[in-house]
């Protein structure tokens, strides 16, 4: 009755929801699985737990498996991404001090314009901007570098992006160790709640469809456990669909808030799930459409082009060869396994495994199994696009 026990590691964040919901709402049981959810103290520990077999699968920052394939950090065991658990869901926030400087500068905290927010941030930073991110290999770091360098701040030279664990982000900003942060919810809202920071921008305004957390396993595990992998993909895919239905939100917040998961008030968790965020200590609110996505627009599909975009960005800032990096990342995301797992489930899957990132500005129908799949928008704030085929040909990858 219990099913096959799989141990799955997670970090206490709102976007661990698909794993928690898969277990608590019975989607794992439907696949004959019992998920033993293990809360990890840090991203590096979680990655090592996965590499050395302490857990079978993990909630993982999407750039970590890519970085590992490129030989950056970790013990060098190849990881595979079975699916994307969530898109977007991070916020950029600033200290109270920087908040008042931004207001004096005339910034309106409209929360919907990456260019305006970025320009104001650069103008008010006075040269020495220190920004906390949860991990060196994270969508947080990549989006910050992308955003600030597109606006003319030379990165990584012009900005000090440093690692601060999510749970300690509010403390770090209070202690004046950082001026700003980019973090996954609920930790941005916690900084607001503690009266130490204000929210400046959701990262979905930098890239409208950024693959945030991946369902990661060891590459050798997936080779021998095809069947288990497929069951895990289906269970979390169902959980994502459940999460996307608005009437399940309150229950989801309650589940996530439990002591064994996030151990926080459901009210703070609900802000990310509803996209209804409180951005500062005066209680101003902002509504963000698509703040975090768990299912819609084929959110769970692990596009090869996403892995290649990450690899290209990582290579550019660490001084590695871009084309070689993209080649090594190409096979880390596994659309083939995702497709095989969901083929018979009625899921509408895209026909392609790679796309031009950033090219879809409005919802667009694409070729798919049943012909009813819509993708996008997935644009970058500056309108650039990323064509993976062109990029590996070593041509001008980022073009206007």
């Amino acid at each position, binding site marked *: 009755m219990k099913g096959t026990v799989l141990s799955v590691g997670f970090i206490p964040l709102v976007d661990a929801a698909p794993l928690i919901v898969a277990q608590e709402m019975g989607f794992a049981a439907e696949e004959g699985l019992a998920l033993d959810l293990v809360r990890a*103290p*840090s*991203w*590096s*520990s979680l990655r*090592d*737990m996965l*590499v*050395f*077999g*302490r857990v079978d699968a993990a909630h993982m920052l999407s750039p970590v498996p890519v970085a590992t394939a490129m*030989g*950056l*950090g*970790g*013990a*060098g*065991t190849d990881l595979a991404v079975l699916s994307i658990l969530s898109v977007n869901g991070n916020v950029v926030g600033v200290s109270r001090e920087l908040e008042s400087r931004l207001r004096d500068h005339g910034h309106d905290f409209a929360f919907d314009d990456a260019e305006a927010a970025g320009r104001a941030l650069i103008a008010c930073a006075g040269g020495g901007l220190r920004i906390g991110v*949860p*991990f*060196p*290999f994270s969508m947080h770091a990549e989006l910050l570098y992308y955003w600030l360098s597109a606006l003319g701040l030379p990165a990584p030279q012009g900005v000090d992006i*440093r*690692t*601060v*664990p999510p*749970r*300690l982000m509010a403390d770090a900003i209070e*202690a004046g*160790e950082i001026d700003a942060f980019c973090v996954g919810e609920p930790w941005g809202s916690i900084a607001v709640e503690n009266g130490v920071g204000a929210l400046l921008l959701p990262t979905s305004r930098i890239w409208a469809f950024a693959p945030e957390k991946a369902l990661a396993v060891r590459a050798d595990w997936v080779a021998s456990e095809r069947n288990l992998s497929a069951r895990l993909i289906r269970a979390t895919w169902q959980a994502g669909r459940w999460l996307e239905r608005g009437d399940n939100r309150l229950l989801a917040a309650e589940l996530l808030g439990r002591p064994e998961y996030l151990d926080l008030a459901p009210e703070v968790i609900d802000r990310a799930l509803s996209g209804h965020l409180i951005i500062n200590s005066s209680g101003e609110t902002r509504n963000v459409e698509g703040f975090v996505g768990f299912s819609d627009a084929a959110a769970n599909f692990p596009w090869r082009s996403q892995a290649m975009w990450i690899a290209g960005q990582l290579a550019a800032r*660490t*001084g*590695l060869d871009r084309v070689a990096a993209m080649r090594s990342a190409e096979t880390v995301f596994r659309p083939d396994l995702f497709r095989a797992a969901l083929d018979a489930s009625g899921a509408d899957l895209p026909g392609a495994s790679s796309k031009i990132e950033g090219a879809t500005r409005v919802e667009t129908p694409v070729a798919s199994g049943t012909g009813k799949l819509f993708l996008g928008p997935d644009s970058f704030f500056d309108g650039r696009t990323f064509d993976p085929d062109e990029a590996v040909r070593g041509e001008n990858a980022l073009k206007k």
Partner: protein
Amino acid sequence: MKQNLHVVIVEKSAERGVLIEQSLRAAGDFDVSIVDDTHGLKARIADLNPDVVLIDIENPSRDTLEELAIASGPLERPVAMFVERSDEGLTRAAIEAGVSAYIVDGLKSDRVKPILDAAVTRFNMFHRMRAELETTKRALEERKVIDRAKGLIMKAKGLGEDEAYALLRKAAMDQNKRVADVAQALVNSAGLLS
């Protein structure tokens, strides 16, 4: 004669730090530094320029050390790897014991092994001590609850202490539960009624 390896221990508790240091010194000639403050951790480590860094796996600040992997360019990493892949058994033992190690790229695993062995033994001892402490604490708490439940039964039914306990034990056996759990349930419900 090779130079002594420089080992940095990141540990908030001074007491634990000293115990780890003692274990290392007993295992060989090492230069040992202890960092007890995780603020500015990366800069501290960079200054100390160690061969090996030991940090508790439960310490969330461990993630800041990952930056060292890219700190001075990916081609000359000062402290890069978790542990050499060639020694998986040792690494697994370290993970299970709850210690993570950062080791300078290229350092031979036979030079690192005594350090890790000593750290693993010490960390396992910490775990055992903590487990024992928790068991003792729980036993004491259960004892208190059972006493309160006994008192409630004695008062309500006019029984002696031994008879009250016998009743409690019988209830536990009938319900296939632990005496402490039945006692807790009784104390909880009595709280509601009072």
